[in-house]
Structure formats: structure tokens, C-alpha cells
């Protein structure tokens, strides 16, 4: 039998067209400071930070099976890492955003030693407890401003217009980088292992996958991403308060965005983040109502359309802009019927079958 009996396809028509459209979109976004207002840039920084957070939670829960309710720990630690790096250690604040990710990833290792003792629902509450511990430690530390928080000093010498532009570009690198990171990760060997673990941890262990190490890896990467996003958020806000930085509402937003958009896909968080901001603009005058509406929509989606909005689109049109699955395409008839008989063939990728 020739090896050319089939080929493995990893792209789709949509992904090839989408890549081109995406390149145009990114080019337009890079140029935003020259055609948009400073309000546009501010909104985009918020959009890109939320997108990053959502992608990280998607990676954690959608691929790692780790339903964490404590990611606010890394948003807060990332924000404070920015302050420490930029104000205390005189590192360039824009560079500090990325370094903050390494700081939070370092915190993730000892944290994992504790929370990985739990599984399922207990893991969720366990991560929340640890987030509270970090919150209380920071809120009680006078060097970091205690309960009153701190302002970012390092940014003072920089002109406002320049600061806004640089912050925006950093945000663009972070947001696009987060999508690219998750995409590349999921297409790699490691991604294949993660998908296998998601579908059956026991079966993948029997095939030689180290489940614990794979989950730990995902947890640390998500901590890195949330830390960078946290630093970015506070580079944009310029003032950090422990109650807000470590608020569980960060995780609430991530979870709702991912579930509404579609968990276990890369498009889902993009769709969900868009829905999040549209809702926020519409309900801006009604205070906490947008969180109430967001929570209610997430519950409805989870119960009646668990694949999310993007899942409805793929079910209907088969669109995939970020294909992470491998498709077997048969080039001669004999191998095709062989594969049919043995039950193989083009299996649709799974959404989120835990």
C-alpha cells in the first residue's frame, strides 16, 4: 500500500480565506492610532484584554478540563507585578506588561501544588480560595498601598498621546498573540494530547500521555496569559485597587464570554467578547444589569445550546477559521472503503464533551 493513499488536511477553505482577511484586519488595527480616536483605542484595549482573558479561560476549561473560578488571582497579581516592575525596579512599563506574565506563571506553580489536590467542583472553589489568599496578602501589604491601592508612577514622564498609542499597540500584540499562542499550542503535539485528555483522561493516559503534566502546563500558560492581560488592564487604567484587581467578576466575565461564544473553539471567545461589549454598551445606563443579563444568557446557552453561538454557526455552515483538528482526506478509493469498514474517516471535532 502506498503512503499516498490519504493526506492529512489541517486547513479549511474558511481558514485560508480567513487568514487573508485576518491579515488585512490586523493591518488596519495596527494603523488604528492614525485613523481612530483615543476613545476607540481605549475601547480596543479593553476588548483585547477581555479577549486575552477569555482565550486563557477557554484553554483552561475547554481544552484542559480545568474549571477555575480563581483566575482573578492572576489578573490581580499581573496588575501588581506591573507596579512592582515599573515603579520599584524601573523596568520600562510597556515591557513590564510582558514580564508580568512570567511573574504570574511563577506564582502558578506553587498554587497548582495546592489546587491540583482537588478535582471538578472542588477545584473550582479551591482556586477561588487561593485567589482570596493572594487578595488578602496584597491588601494587607503596606508597600503595595494596602487596601487603598496605588497609581502607576512610571508612566508620568510620557506624553498622553504617545502613552495611549503605545498602550494600544501593546494590547494589540497581547490580544493577537493570545489567539496565536492558543492556536499554535492546540495544533501542536501537546494540543493533540490535550484534546485526547478532554475526551477521555483515562484512555489518553493508557496511550502514554502524562495527564498531570499536560494539565499543569495548561494551568501555567493560562496564568501567564491572565497575568499579561492583568498588567495590560492596569497599564490602561493607571490606578490599581486590590478589591477590583482581585474581583471574581473578572473570572465571571471570562466564563460567560467563553460559554456564550462557544467553549472549545478559538472563534468562540472572539464572538463572546463581541457580545460582551455590545451588551455593555447597550446596558451602560443600568449599572449591574449587564452582569445579570450576561449571567442569564450564559445559563440559557449552557442549557440549550452548550456549543455556544459559534457552535450554532459551525453546526449550520461548517465554518472554521481556526481549524485545530486533523482531517483525513482519502486520495484513492481502496483506502477510503477500508477506513469506512474500520469505522474511521472524517470525524467531526468535538466541541466540549467533558
Amino acid at each position, binding site marked *: 500500500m502506498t503512503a499516498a493513499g490519504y493526506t492529512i488536511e489541517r486547513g479549511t477553505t474558511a481558514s485560508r480565506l480567513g487568514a487573508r482577511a485576518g491579515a488585512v484586519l490586523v493591518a488596519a488595527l495596527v494603523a488604528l492610532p492614525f485613523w481612530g480616536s483615543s476613545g476607540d483605542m481605549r475601547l480596543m484595549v479593553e476588548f483585547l484584554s477581555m479577549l486575552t482573558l477569555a482565550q486563557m479561560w477557554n484553554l483552561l*476549561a475547554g481544552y484542559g*478540563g480545568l*474549571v477555575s*473560578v480563581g483566575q482573578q488571582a492572576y489578573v490581580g497579581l499581573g496588575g501588581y507585578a506591573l507596579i512592582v516592575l515599573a515603579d520599584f525596579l524601573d523596568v520600562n512599563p510597556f515591557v513590564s506588561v510582558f514580564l508580568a506574565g512570567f511573574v504570574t506563571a511563577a506564582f502558578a506553580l506553587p498554587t497548582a501544588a*495546592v489546587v491540583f*489536590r482537588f478535582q*471538578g*467542583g*472542588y477545584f*473550582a*472553589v479551591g482556586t*477561588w*480560595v*487561593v485567589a*482570596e*489568599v493572594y487578595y*488578602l*496578602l496584597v*491588601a*494587607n501589604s503596606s508597600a503595595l498601598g494596602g487596601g487603598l491601592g496605588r497609581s502607576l508612577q512610571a508612566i508620568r514622564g510620557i506624553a498622553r498621546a504617545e502613552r495611549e498609542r503605545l498602550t494600544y499597540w501593546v494590547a494589540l500584540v497581547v490580544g493577537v498573540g493570545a489567539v496565536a499562542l492558543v492556536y499554535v499550542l492546540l495544533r501542536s503535539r501537546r494540543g493533540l494530547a490535550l484534546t485526547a485528555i478532554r475526551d477521555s483522561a483515562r484512555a489518553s493516559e493508557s496511550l502514554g500521555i502524562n495527564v498531570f503534566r499536560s494539565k499543569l502546563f495548561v494551568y501555567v500558560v493560562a496564568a501567564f496569559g491572565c497575568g499579561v492581560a492583568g498588567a495590560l488592564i492596569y497599564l490602561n487604567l493607571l490606578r490599581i485597587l486590590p478589591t477590583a484587581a482581585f474581583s*471574581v*467578576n473578572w473570572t*465571571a466575565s471570562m*466564563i*460567560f464570554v467563553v*460559554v456564550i461564544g462557544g*467553549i472549545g473553539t478559538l472563534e468562540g471567545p472572539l464572538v463572546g467578547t463581541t457580545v460582551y461589549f455590545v451588551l455593555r454598551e447597550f446596558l451602560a445606563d443600568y*449599572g*449591574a*444589569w449587564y*452582569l*445579570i443579563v*450576561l*449571567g*442569564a444568557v*450564559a*445559563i440559557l446557552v*449552557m*442549557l440549550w445550546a*452548550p456549543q455556544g453561538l459559534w457552535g450554532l454557526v459551525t453546526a449550520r455552515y461548517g465554518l472554521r477559521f481556526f481549524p485545530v483538528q486533523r482531517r483525513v482526506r482519502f486520495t484513492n478509493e481502496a483506502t477510503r472503503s477500508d477506513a469506512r469498514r474500520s469505522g474511521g474517516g472524517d470525524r467531526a471535532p468535538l466541541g*466540549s*464533551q*467533558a
Partner: protein
Amino acid sequence: MDWMNAVIQGVLLGGLYALFAAGLSLVFGIMRVVNLAHGDFIILAAFLSVVVVGVTGLGPFLSLVIVVPLMGGLGYAVQRGLLARTLDRGVLPPLLVTFGLSVIIQNLLLQIFSADDRRLDAGGISTASIGIAGQLAIGWFPVVVFLAGVLAIAGLQILFTRTALGRAFRATADDQETVRLMGIDNRHTYGLAVAIAFGIVALAGVCLGIRTTFSPDIGPGRLLVAFETVVIGGLGSLWGTLMGGVILGIAHTIGAKLDPAYRELTGHLVFLLVLLARPQGLFAKPVRET
């Protein structure tokens, strides 16, 4: 003497924590669902009591006659209408639904009642105390709450070991399919379990409201206390839950004695220490393989 006092207050506080934990543990034990909105339901019950007291003029204690059945009914409805649809669908759905409920309840309470601190006024009993040697004095009300916690735990113990309903709960927890073959409606059984859990939640909420001030945003904190109590005590051990509450209560009062800011932190650290030293909890029964 001050330290002795802190320990005694901590023990009594443990009764309240056991009340917090009992409902969480019951739902988890039977359905393997961690209700992330547990703390917010406790606070919801406290606000319900505020409304009942305001409308009927009953005292907070008597308001239980209305609040407990209301919360029980709500629990049954939440189980049959929402949670039942998430069972057997993996880890995420029940967590997402209860987390969504948590955010919704918290923000609705905030919209309706504002962020102000409130308290249920139970009259003389909330300040009355029994003097013991020297400066030691024990408040009557903390003693009452402690006893309520002990009674709730004892009640659950009797329910589980001595009654037909308790057998149905245990059987359903073990094997839903077989239980149905035996003529038990597992969906109704789950509903009743959550209803009982919410009845205890109502009691916990009213006790909390009389003991301290509360506001819409303290629900998640109560969830964490309930969770730590269950884990310290050991899963599946009801008396362990009471002991877990006592240990956590003492940690909180001793921590607060060192510095009011350390109250919660000490509790979390004791929890983490227990977890690292003895992951199955201090009083867990040996695990039966099923």
C-alpha cells in the same frame, strides 16, 4: 483570659459555619454538584427575612416559619428547573449554572436593597449574655446558633441513617439507574434533597443576619467558609463538618485577635495547611470503593 474568650467565641462561631456547610455538603454528597451560589442563597434568605419582618411585623425567629418553606420551594424549583438539566453532562455545566446564579442573585440584591449593611433585629436576645468567671461572658445568641448547628447536623444524621427518605438519598447518590428500578423517582429525590439543603440555608441566613451585619456582596465569602468547613472536616462526615466549623471558627477569632485584618487570612491558611497535611480532611471516614 482574652485568648480563652477568643477560643470560646470561635467554638460558638463554628456552629454557624456548620450551618453554612451542611447545605453545601448535602447537595454535593447526593448529586456531586458544588453549588457556587450557595453563599448567595444564604444572603438571599437573610434578605427574605428582612422583607418578611417588614411586611408581617413578625420577629426574625418567627420569620423562619415563612422563609424556610419559601427557600425549600425555591431549592426544589432550582433543582428541577435548572440543575437537573446539567447532571451527567460533565464538570462545567453545573458549575456554570450555579456560578451564573451567584452573579445574578448578588447583583439583583444589590439593585433592590442597595449595598448598605443590614441586620436582623431580634430584640434582647442578640445582646444578652451569660457571665462566666471574671471577664468571660458568652452571648446567648451565639449559644443558640451553635445549638442550631448541632441540631441541624444531628437531624441530617438521623435523616440519613434512620428514615426511608434518607435511604432513598443514599441509594440515589450511589446509583440513579438502579434506584429507578426500585420505584424511586430519582428526579423528585434530588429535588427533595436540594429543598432540605435550602431549608438549612434559610436557617443559616437568618442566624447570620441576627448575629452580624450583612450586605449583598458577602455571599461568595460565605461559600468559601462553607467549603473550607466541609473540606477540613472531611467529605461525607457530618460530625466532621461540625468539627470543621469549630476549627475554622477558632482560626477566625484567633486571627481577628491578632489583627482584625487577619481574620479571613488565618482561616484560609489553616484550611490550606489541613489540605496539604491531610487532603481527605481531619475526620473523614475510610473511603468505600463502589
